[in-house]
């Protein structure tokens, strides 16, 4: 890369000056006296200062750059819970062979107020532990001395990495507030990065170009007669290479904490503000090196991924499965039959080892042979087999839940791959063979995040919607009779479809029926007399539960009248949304619908005094509806209740509407049927 420079010895001089506003090793008395964070009294701790400087440093002997990241933090601890922040763990890459990262120059202090005086305790070496986590990762574990409620701790360290194409993500937001942030990233012109914002908080950087240079001397060893080295004749050539570096400075004060304490939240990290860097180009032409494009738009990204030997070429291999697939599809008449046969074959042949990646790990051949693979191994193999069978199959790149939303074209944005078969007339099927209980177009929840990127053989790519068009359905049909001693006897049939069926199969298929009965009884306060589950293994059909039960607890008698909740044990009593406000979307991950139909036979000697009123409510923009109706038909009371959400994601702006919607729904459901004696 830097051939020219490799053969000369260089003395590298670099000057940089920066205004370090917060001095290391000093803390004000006011900071120590502060009893709570003024802008957020709930904070257990706060970053008083968070500084990071990342820059490229030239190594003269090796003729290459390395990335240096300097960290400087001041943390104020307000509560005993906040003491957790006095222990820190820094992970770095240290493989058994190959280039290592290192963490050096760890320095720290604890400041506490003791009898009105500032006590400063130095972090000693014995409080720093190194732990080899696994083959690749080592941790520096640091715990501060003499920390108490009220203390301020300060730390400084350096992380040095030979991996110049990877700049660690910038995090702007944490689970505690930040008083002052200062990040400075300096990137030489030789490296071009894409920057991708994430979360709900952003700091706009100040950008400037700075002229930098590498000044170096080339030593020409002096030679005397007969080639004998003569130091007196040594001459020096002074060389200087100028280059531009892009400096990004992120400065901000008072950044609020973002914590997770609400139901239906996708990974909280997705919502915390930050910035990701992704290399798009390496260009050393000015130095006589090469220029390499890595990615800059979606097509580049797709092409780049496709070109990788762990992706595109894995799709082309077919010799290892040829015979097996030929015999499997020989009896299939239609394309659909072929797809299902191949899909089922891959699921039964290769099991997922739990690792996500768009690239193969074992490689398709080995995965096929050993029966184990990561996501890339399995779904690229599947795609290849479908193509082999003559279908229009292509991989779809996915950013799985927890990996964030791929808004900008980056390689890291995708961490998962699935398969897609397209048919004439814009219809298509999505397949994920890592999930044993999935069926075409019903993907497991981990896949359902934003859109996927379809990559075709020619390298062109386009977006594909991943969320299932079919809602997750729970359909209950309940019939009961009431005996003279007010016990209720009845039958319930529950149908679970689509994602509901998938999650049931995942969670309960392997659990013994006896245990399921115990759980069902406990959850619903009934006694089960007969319990059947159908279609556990028949994935195309819905899960059907048929249960005969009895209960003494579903009817209330007060002053001779009977009070019954129309939905019996299917009644929802609890509003999941309890807090006043919500900052991030409500993520159900898929559209869903629950239908309850309940028929209650009016016992002899009683008549209806009162039935709950009809209710039909909706959320704005057709996000969701709730319908509830109780009617007397002959000697029966028939209740129908439908709750439906058409969108997988409900924006935080609708939180108040949603909370209100749920509170109405719960109130109505718990209104009672009143029966009086004839």
């Amino acid at each position, binding site marked *: 890369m830097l051939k020219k420079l490799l053969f000369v010895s260089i003395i590298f001089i670099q000057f940089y000056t920066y205004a370090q506003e917060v001095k290391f090793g000093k803390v004000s008395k006011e900071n120590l006296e502060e009893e709570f964070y003024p802008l957020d*009294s*709930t*904070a257990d701790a706060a970053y008083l200062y968070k500084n990071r400087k990342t820059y490229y440093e030239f190594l003269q002997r090796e003729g290459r750059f390395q990335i240096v990241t300097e960290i400087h933090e001041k943390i104020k601890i307000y*509560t*005993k*819970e906040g*003491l957790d922040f*006095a*222990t820190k763990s820094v992970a770095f890459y240290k493989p058994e062979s190959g280039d290592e990262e290192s963490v050096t120059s760890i320095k720290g202090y604890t400041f506490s107020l003791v009898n009105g005086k500032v006590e400063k305790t130095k972090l*000693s070496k*014995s*409080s720093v*532990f190194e*732990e*080899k*986590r*696994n*083959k690749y990762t080592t941790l520096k*574990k640091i*715990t501060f*001395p*003499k*920390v*108490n409620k009220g203390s301020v701790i300060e730390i400084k360290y350096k992380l040095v990495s030979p991996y110049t194409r990877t700049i660690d993500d910038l995090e702007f937001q944490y689970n505690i507030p930040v008083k002052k942030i200062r990040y400075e990233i300096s990137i030489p012109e030789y490296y071009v990065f894409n920057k991708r914002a994430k979360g709900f908080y952003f700091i706009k950087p100040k950008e400037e170009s700075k002229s930098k240079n590498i000044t170096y001397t080339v030593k020409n060893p002096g030679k005397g007669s007969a080639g004998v080295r003569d130091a007196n004749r040594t001459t020096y050539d002074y060389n200087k290479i100028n280059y531009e570096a892009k400096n990004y400075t992120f400065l901000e004060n008072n950044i609020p904490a973002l914590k997770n*304490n609400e139901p239906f939240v996708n990974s909280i990290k997705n919502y915390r503000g930050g910035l990701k860097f992704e290399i798009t180009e390496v260009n050393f032409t000015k130095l006589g090196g090469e220029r390499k494009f890595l990615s800059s738009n979606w097509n580049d990204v797709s092409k780049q991924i496709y070109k990788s030997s762990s992706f595109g070429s894995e799709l082309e291999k077919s010799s290892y499965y040829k015979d097996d697939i030929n015999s499997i599809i020989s009896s299939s008449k239609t394309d659909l039959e072929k797809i299902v046969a191949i899909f089922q074959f891959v699921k039964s042949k*290769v*099991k*997922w*080892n*739990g690792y996500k990646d768009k690239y193969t790990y074992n490689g398709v051949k080995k995965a096929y042979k*050993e*029966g*184990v693979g990561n996501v890339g191994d399995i779904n690229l193999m599947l795609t290849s087999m479908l193509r082999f069978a003559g279908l229009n199959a292509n991989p779809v790149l996915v950013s799985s839940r927890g990996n964030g939303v791929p808004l900008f074209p980056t390689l890291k944005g995708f961490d998962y791959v699935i398969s897609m078969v397209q048919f004439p007339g814009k219809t298509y099927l999505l397949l994920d063979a890592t999930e044993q209980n999935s069926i075409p177009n019903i993907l497991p929840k981990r896949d359902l995040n934003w859109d996927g990127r379809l990559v075709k053989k020619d390298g062109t790519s386009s977006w594909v919607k991943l969320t299932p068009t079919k809602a997750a359905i729970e359909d209950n049909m309940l019939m009961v009779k009431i005996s003279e001693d007010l016990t209720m006897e009845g039958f319930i049939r529950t149908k679970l479809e689509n994602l509901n069926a998938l999650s049931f199969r995942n969670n309960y298929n*392997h*659990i*013994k029926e006896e245990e399921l009965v*115990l759980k069902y*009884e*406990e959850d619903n*306060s009934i*006694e089960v007399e007969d319990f059947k589950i159908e279609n556990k293994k028949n994935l195309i059909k819905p899960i059907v539960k048929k249960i005969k039960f009895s209960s*003494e*607890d579903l009817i*209330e008698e*007060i*002053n001779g009248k009977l*009070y019954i909740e129309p939905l019996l044990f299917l009644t929802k*009593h*609890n*509003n999941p949304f*309890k*807090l006043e406000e919500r900052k991030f979307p409500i993520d159900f991950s898929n559209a869903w619908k629950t239908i309850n139909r309940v028929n209650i036979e009016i016992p002899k000697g009683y008549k209806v005094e*009162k039935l709950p009123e009809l209710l039909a409510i909706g959320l704005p923009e057709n996000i969701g509806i709730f319908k509830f109706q109780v009617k007397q038909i002959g000697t029966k009371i028939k209740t129908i209740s439908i709750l439906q959400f058409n969108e997988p994601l409900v924006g935080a702006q609708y939180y108040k509407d949603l909370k209100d919607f749920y*509170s109405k729904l*719960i*109130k109505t459901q*718990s*209104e*009672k049927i*009143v029966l009086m004696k004839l």
Partner: protein
Amino acid sequence: MFKFPLLIIFTLFFSFTIFSQKKEYSSLLIPIELKEDANAVVRDNSIEITIEAINRMVVRKRKIVTVLNKLGNTDARIGESYDNNTKITKLSAKIYDAFGNEIKKYSKNKFLDVSAVDGGTLYSDSRVKYVDYTPVTYPYTLVFESEYKTTTTGFIPWWFPVNGYYVSVEKSSYILKNEEAISWRKKEQNFKGFEIDKQESTTELKYSLVNQKAYKYESNTISSREMLPKVIVSLDKFNLDGVYGEFTNWEEFGQWMHKFLIAGRDILDETTKIKILELVKGIEDPIEKAKIVYEFMQNKTRYISVQVGIGGWQPIAADEVDSVGYGDCKGLTNYTKALLDVVGVTSYFTLVYANEKRNIDKDFSSFQGNHAILNIPNNGQDIWLECTSQTNPFGFLGDFTDDRDVLVIQPDGGVIKRTTSYKNEINLQTIKGEITFNEKGNVKATLKRTSKGTQYDSKFNLVNLSEEELIKNYKSNVWSYNNNLEVNSVKLNNDKDNVVFIEDLELSIQNFATINEKEYLFRVNVFNKENYIPKRYRKRKLPLKINRGYKDIDEYIIKIPANYNLEFLPTNKELTTKFGSYSIAFKKIDSSTFSYKKSIMIKEGIYPKDDYKIYRSFRRSIAKLENIRIAIIKK
């Protein structure tokens, strides 16, 4: 240019792997009764321990397990742990399918080597070599073999042939070879009802168990530790991380531990001594002094787990804890002891099993316990200090280390003592309150909730929550069954001296009552609903156990809206069983006011399995009475 030849070598290697078939590993051969209620079947588990010398032990293990389903994977973990004194010499794993065909093979260098530190520990020497196997079919059979050599003979592996629930055992064996005939002790437990074969000589001990059916888990029962067989073994002379040791009973164990692990670890620097002496100046009563020392320690330190020092058994020196301000349970206990020594209060380092109630075996001395606390003798009324807590009241253990046998290390020898117990009515919660219902069905209430014993334990940390989190706790945990609950004011009082926690609350609930033209209905028990009903087991097999027990007393004055008549009040009820008692009582005060009193008491105890049904029906009746509603009629 190196790429090419390497590639060829790899390919050659690859094609050499040849898999074989072992018929005896086929899962088809497992007797049906061993598959019943089992997620895994231990086909043959053998452990062979050879004590070559006081500082040399070799342990060979071979585990053959057939895993029947996904849940059985936990019985087929592939891993061996080690530390600085232990060297793993052999390690291999093979996987066979249902027919006994070998499908996967791991040699020693395929094992991952990671640190065996859990989330709560900052540093430890322990490491583990393991394999993360992804099952491709069920059933499958694992054959896992390992061998390690260690210089520490203090911990000889014990024998637990049945390792928990849902696992059956075709065969399990244990051989202990004591070639030098070093004197040793053993203890057999829970052998009754198990097919165990035993052979014993001065240099060898052998056990084996065959054809043991799987146990099914049932809730509310005794610990599996108390019913499954085990053999515990200990050498009279041993080596622990380079330290020689000798004991045959707890007294000697205590002497040894004091001498080698604790003595001399209590040195403190002069300034700390002066500081602590200054704090207790003028105080004579040793308990009052101890309170001050305990508070000093709580404010100065925090708990950080660092597992180093003589097999993890030696506490960090007191002056080191003093200078860094943190330590693990041993370090903090020893530090507190050193401080108490300075002020002239005697205290002893104490070993205990924390969390799950478990005794140090009073008849069998060996390395036992997983936690340390401090004992202060007090004329037969021992005081116990939990030194890892910054918030516990003085002398309060809570359910972490209560009511169990512990080993108190006195310089002249170890002594078994029992910690404070928190039982039945000691764990008392009382609520006194006034509740007012208005015409719209809304509730306003003022409550005083007072908690003691374990009920104190579960609440006193509420003082550390921020207001937002505290209110969330009331809404989402305590009263999650009351929608629309608002906390209008809350005052907490953590009375550490008397170990009493008091909450003064003002609450309101919108739309609590159901109103129609004539009637107004509401659940009379607004704030303390006990809905718990134990699971219904068709055929209960294990005894019933109720842990600790508790008592709740609720007293409310309830006001109804003025335009309604209080016609009927529910009848008073009283249930009394051997498991405890329950009562509710209503009393009309005036035309729009009545009182509601409730009392529930559940007693600690172990009862035969047939009692489970009666207990369940007792809890069911309670649950029903807890939901009683009252209807009042419009005037």
